[in-house]
């Protein structure tokens, strides 16, 4: 355990002056304050939901619903958190989800059944992520531009495959996965996947060399390179990882919606970035928190749920979402400057 961890930490310590023990402890403390404040927001939302709609909101079915709705964007956000932590950005996540979901639901793919759909969704995601990664790491393109190009072309390809049509899934095994009968001890399979992705993501970011390298590249890429980290390969892997998450999310979306459509994953990039940022991941890189990102996703999903249960319309919903992003970031800046 300690053996693979020590060399990169040495590397980062050499070049990042803030990483001395006391500073390191403040960082940890700060992260805790941040997580606690997010939990506070979530608790406040639960109180509001419980007060306004006690019967509908405080209900097992509603909990299942909120977690299910959070799972697709949640998986995307885990991948996005890694990319942002490394100082990058992935604007193509929504488009990749769309492309993977339509590619995996064509008539030809559906002939291969459950495995065919799952395999195609994941591989298309990874493939797009690889193209992003190669362009950014080895092609020297700015992440913003490379992934913007991927956004445009993946959406275009998705449209070309579907011709704008809704591709309905006929494979019963895939559809069954979204039904109540498939719940494991009351937990929907989609939520299980989300939980597993979150736990793996947390472990990888916090307990592995890969995670430490990611933080190091985001903190100071040049320093990381001098410390012996292959920055380019690290970047390639990070965009691959984001693509993989999109592929998994696309499969979840296929199960959830029972279909593939080129409009899927609309504005996921913004939702995922927003969730990661309010979670406490630095947009400039060097710091990332999976726990925060997941809390960010849950906060947004819970807001949507409370608004829908109270029959408030989408305009109010959007205004509130914007206000919460601003408030969360302001609170973070305060906590960051005071501690």
């Amino acid at each position, binding site marked *: 355990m300690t053996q693979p961890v020590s060399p990169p930490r040495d590397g980062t310590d050499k070049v990042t002056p803030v990483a001395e023990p006391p500073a390191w402890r403040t960082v940890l403390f700060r992260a805790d304050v941040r997580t606690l404040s997010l939990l506070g927001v979530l608790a406040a939302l639960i109180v509001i939901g419980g007060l306004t709609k006690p019967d509908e909101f405080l209900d097992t079915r509603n909990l299942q619903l909120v977690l299910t709705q959070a799972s697709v964007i949640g998986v995307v956000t885990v991948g996005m958190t890694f990319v942002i932590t490394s100082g990058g950005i992935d604007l193509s996540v929504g488009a990749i989800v769309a492309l993977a979901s339509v590619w995996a639901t064509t008539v030809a793919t559906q002939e291969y059944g459950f495995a065919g759909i799952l395999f195609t969704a994941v591989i298309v995601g990874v493939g797009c992520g690889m193209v992003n990664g190669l362009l950014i790491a080895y092609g020297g393109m700015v992440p913003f531009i490379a992934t913007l190009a991927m956004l445009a072309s993946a959406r275009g390809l998705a449209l070309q495959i579907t011709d*704008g049509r809704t591709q309905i899934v006929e494979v019963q095994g895939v559809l069954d996965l*979204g039904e109540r009968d498939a719940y494991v001890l009351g937990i929907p399979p989609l939520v299980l996947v989300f939980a597993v992705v979150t736990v793996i993501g947390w472990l990888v970011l916090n307990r592995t060399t890969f995670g430490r390298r990611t933080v190091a590249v985001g903190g100071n890429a040049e320093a990381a390179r001098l410390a012996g980290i292959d920055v380019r390969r690290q970047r390639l892997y990070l965009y691959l990882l984001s693509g993989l998450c999109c592929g998994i999310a696309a499969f979840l979306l296929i199960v959830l919606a*029972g279909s593939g459509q080129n409009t899927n994953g609309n504005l996921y990039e913004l939702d995922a970035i927003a969730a990661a940022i309010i979670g406490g991941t630095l947009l400039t890189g060097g710091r990332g928190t999976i726990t925060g990102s997941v809390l960010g996703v849950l906060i947004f999903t819970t807001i949507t749920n409370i608004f829908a249960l109270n029959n408030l319309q989408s305009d109010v919903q959007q205004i509130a979402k914007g206000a919460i992003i601003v408030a969360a970031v302001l609170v973070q800046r305060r906590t960051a400057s005071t501690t």
Partner: protein
Amino acid sequence: MPQFPSRRGLLFGTAAVSAGTLLVGCTSNDTGDKAAADKQPAADDKPGKEVTIGFAGPQADHGWLNAINDNAKSRAERYEDVTLEITEGSNDTAQQIGQIETLINKKVDVLVVLPADGKALTQVGLKAMRAGIPVVNLDRIFNSPQAYRCWIGGDNYGMGLNAGHYIGEKLKDKSDARVIELAGLDNLELTKQRTQGFDDALKNYPNIKKVARQAAEFTVESGQAKMAQLLQAQSKFDALWNHDDDQGVGALRAIEQAGRDDFLMVGGAGALSAFQAIEKDDGVLKATVLYPPTMAASAIDLARALGQSKGIGGLAEFEIPSSLTLYSAVVDKDNVDQYMSTGFK
């Protein structure tokens, strides 16, 4: 750690190539179906003067718009005397203006334009009319009546009205009936018109109350998400009107997932999957209100009639009307056979 780069590279390389080969074979969607059939012509069928019709529409990024293009093309093919000049669909106003100007310069005889944005394309409509090319404005209306010779389109208010009346008649004997609405994209005027029509119709039935309304985004994904929330919010209701059959696929999925079947559902637009569900009659979807994509076929008929200076068969006038609002018929189990061929995917 880079001890075996070549072996690992080889492994991944081979895997990537074989996955790629497999995947490329998986993009086909061919089921061997033909485009929506359309039978009755609006103008008379006898061949006349050769007419070149220029057609410009938005990018076919959803099923209904795709059906618009298919209907226009297959209709034009049926006439020996019609040549169709069709542009690459675009949602970009500047690009669509350019495309229409190209068609004007090519001196087509008649233009059929479905603007990406009606108001923004008014000027180019005016330009065509001034150049002596009559314009048939399809569905999304120009700002000025001078910009088109004839407008043909659907009736959003009528959709809501007819959906409301259908539901009203079904529930009129039920006291304290509860109705919910799953609307389309809320920042479009057409969504407001549909909701207005629906509300106006329900006013005729004092026993019915609309208890909830949520707006989805015309996509399957949003339909599923919003419907799931609505079902959680309303443990009991009697009828649901969903503005759009595409998002209805998602809504039906949410209804199935929640295991609910204690209400009747009416859809909107007229997708093939909705028609098939109505015909099977084994779920909550009992009817759908049309917003017929066959209007593109009729627009070709009108353009041909304009080019040949004819009126519409069955009307007394020598000219075609300046405005045609199509009826938003309700399709249910009794008449679904008749409409099946017009359903879009």
